[in-house]
């Protein structure tokens, strides 16, 4: 297990320099069959990460640039009348791919946003009363600009919950940036060179293995204490839901798996907590670190 996930992460780390932790979280999200939200400024490598992930896993990849005039049918596809056969043929949209990059999701109208989010939840698309299942695996990586950027339709809280994790890549460190400037790391070229490290069956096995990771009583209690703190401390207007605690448990397991362990540690909980809870608590990526640190300081680790 460790080797496979380690290989994915290593490959992607060569592509996006110095962001190993974020890459690991992206993999965690994939292992948990969740969808990933990347909130960041343009030009930080969001697209590269998603494309790279698709390549490494050998999955089909589509990218949709969300704009304000994008219509639901533009993503889901539409039925076109076939004059020869005198019937409507369904022409699938870009959503029918295994990895879908929904770029700048908050630029699109709420209607389009919800079409995508609905499909994410149900893993199927209904057009003209006909239901079309989405491919397996189906992994949406949505990116959004920070909310203060103009011309955005922020995702409502209820929809944010559909994303399993939210990460932000952030600025690269000095060393990584130097490499980037010197052009020693030509991303686009590298992308096509990425070797596929596992096939679909292996991924499915990996996803099943997540649930087998041991979540000891004390770790579960730690998760409950953390969640309860957001509920009863009075510091949060949108406390964590049971769906969030389930996600926290699952992400903790997947994270432990990427570390090559078949049991979870409180460290794993802390590692995924910001990504799982941040967008659900409605905390912007900037403040996230401080808030999460505050929570950890207040909730003692259960051993």
């Amino acid at each position, binding site marked *: 297990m460790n080797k496979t996930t380690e290989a994915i992460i290593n490959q992607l780390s060569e592509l996006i320099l110095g962001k190993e932790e974020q890459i690991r979280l992206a993999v965690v999200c994939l292992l948990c069959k969740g969808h990933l939200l990347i909130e960041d400024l343009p030009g930080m490598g969001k697209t590269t990460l998603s494309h790279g992930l698709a390549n490494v896993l050998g999955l089909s990849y589509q990218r949709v640039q969300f704009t304000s005039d994008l219509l639901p049918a533009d993503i889901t596809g539409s039925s076109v009348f076939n004059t020869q056969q005198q019937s409507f043929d369904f022409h699938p949209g870009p959503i029918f791919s295994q990895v879908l990059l929904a770029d700048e999701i908050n630029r699109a109208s709420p209607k389009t946003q919800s079409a995508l989010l609905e499909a994410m939840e149900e893993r199927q698309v209904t057009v003209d009363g006909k239901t079309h299942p989405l491919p397996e695996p189906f992994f949406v990586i949505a990116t959004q600009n920070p909310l203060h950027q103009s011309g955005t339709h922020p995702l409502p809280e209820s929809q944010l919950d559909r994303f399993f994790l939210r990460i932000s890549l952030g600025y690269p460190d000095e060393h990584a940036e130097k490499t980037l400037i010197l052009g020693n790391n030509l991303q686009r070229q590298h992308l096509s060179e990425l070797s596929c490290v596992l096939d679909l069956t292996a991924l499915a096995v990996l996803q099943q293995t997540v649930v087998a990771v*041991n979540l*000891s009583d*004390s*770790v579960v209690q730690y998760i409950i204490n953390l969640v309860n703190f957001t509920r009863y401390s009075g510091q949060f207007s949108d406390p964590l839901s049971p769906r969030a605690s389930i996600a926290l448990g699952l992400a903790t397991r997947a994270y432990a798996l990427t570390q090559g*362990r*078949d*049991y*979870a*540690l*409180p*460290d794993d909980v*802390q590692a995924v907590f910001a990504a799982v809870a941040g967008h659900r608590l409605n905390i912007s990526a900037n403040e996230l670190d401080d808030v999460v640190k505050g929570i950890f*300081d207040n909730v*003692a*680790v259960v*051993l």
Partner: protein
Amino acid sequence: MISDKLLGSQTLLTTLLYGLVSILLVDSFGLVFTCAMLLIVLFKLSIHKQLVKGPSEKLINLLAFTIILVVFVAIGFSNLVEMFVSLLLGACALKTIQAKTKKQAMSVQLLNFFVYPCFFIFSQNVLSLLFVLALLVINLAQMLWIEHDIELRSAMKQATKHLLLALPLAAIMVVLLPKVSPFWQLPGAKKTQTGLSEDIDPFEISELSRSDELVFRAIFPENAQMKPPFYWRTLIHDKFDGKRWRVSAHHDVPLQAPYRAVGASYTVIARPSGKTWLYNLGQAKSATRGVNTNHFGTLFMQNHLSSSMEYQVTPIHVSGAGMVNWQYRLNTALPEEINPLATAMAMRWDNATDNTADFIELMKQYFIEHRFSYSLKPATISDRDSIDTFLTETREGFCGHYAASAAFMLRAAGIPARLVSGYLGGEYNEEREYYSVYQYDAHAWVEYYVPQQGWYRLDPTAWVAPDRLIGSLSELTQLEEEFKDNLGLSLMTYSNLALVNWIRLQIEQLDYQWTRWVLNFDHQKQSRLLRDLFGQYHRLLPALSVFLLLIAIFIARFWYLQRKQLVKLPEAVKLHHAICKIAGDELHKLTPSQALLSLKSQYPGLSQELEEFNQYFVKSRFSRAQLTKAEATRMKALGRLIIKKAKK
């Protein structure tokens, strides 16, 4: 979450205990209420066995209403304490039947801490103490049982442990805490089923319901030289209406006549009787507060004797020189035209003699010549001239019959006479040198007045059964069978068996000490004890002890809260905490790997050990795999090693 089955069996146990309590208190509650309680127990039992469905709210309300009716009708408002206690018991029993959730069951258990000690209202001896303690232990165990869902046996163990832990504290509190007299008095909490009453007609009693219940104990000082027979004067019946001998209203009038003290004082420890009268030999005064002497020379209290009480008695002699007219009239008063035979007999004897002593001698001759016999189960005589019937026909009776007949004949002859009821004798405990007087020692005799001299005692029973005057009734071999028949099931019944008698005496001893040192541990005794123990500082002690107690409670609570967290912790976590504690307070809040990092930076020399310890720790706490025995030992050794080295 507690299962329904467990909740069912635990509430069943509570109901059964209620049933037991109501059976034991059947004397106080009456048969009707006890039967009602037993029906509730049966109902609960059949619910438990799933013979009937659990009651609806309507049914419970109906049952509650019925219970209230039963209590009002069967017990009534004249016995307020019995009424309220039985209402409480009934309410709790119904609540127990109704309890469906853990919370409801718990509230009943909490209520039981008030219900069970109510037993003390009715009985305060050592056996009831043990009984209530046992009930409390079971109650505590049940609470543990509900709360933690542990086995009843280990719950009992824990509960006993808790209670034993609490006992020393209770003992210290008894000794040190300031004694406050009770805020209220229980009005006649105890019905006297046996023994004395203010109003007697011996001829209507077919069988003396005797009990071996203790009435009081008397402790004579060594130099007192008291000699039996001991006549404990308690009630003076000076009003006779032809059938019943009553206590006149003058019973509570304090003594005003001049008197002088005779002989050494002794101590009496009286059991709660719910009455105002006390016990003394002859005429007496008492230095104990609240104890007064009435004009008969017997002791009484203003309040009902609702708890065990110890008082000092000083024998006195009241000058009996004069008798006022109304007193003379009262003590010679007889209704007209009753007992013509007895009256005629008395007149004949009176004419034949010229002093009271001779008259009494003739009376004695009559009883002896006509072969009167002593019996505890005489036939009832309910006709108007009961004394005539007794004197001429049945000629069989107990003390009351003889005393009532003698008093009647004395009055018929114009000699002032009155009936006295009280106790005769007592069982002597050689080891501790005290007398125990039981209800079956109750006795009645006569007092007659000799002008210019005073009142004299006359016990006509002694003519018939002279043995009765020596010691206690229990020692009277002649009446052994009858006596034991009356007593029913009691240790005394089998006192001819050496072992039973030994046990009985041990219990008696224990009870004596209990009464002496716990029940009667009043303010006076407390200050004496404290003075002996602490000298001049004893006055500060109660305040200091309250203060210390509060601090102790605070510390205990703090310690308990701390312990509660630690107590569930496995060995590995304890070790981890211990290591973190040496390195810094906040470390235990970190995850194991964060703590490891911090520890490693603080103790670079111990990196290897820390790393290894952490490995085992993580494995034992978070992985599915268990540590092998060797690994566990290794982990412990590493932990100790790290602590030892880190401390250096």
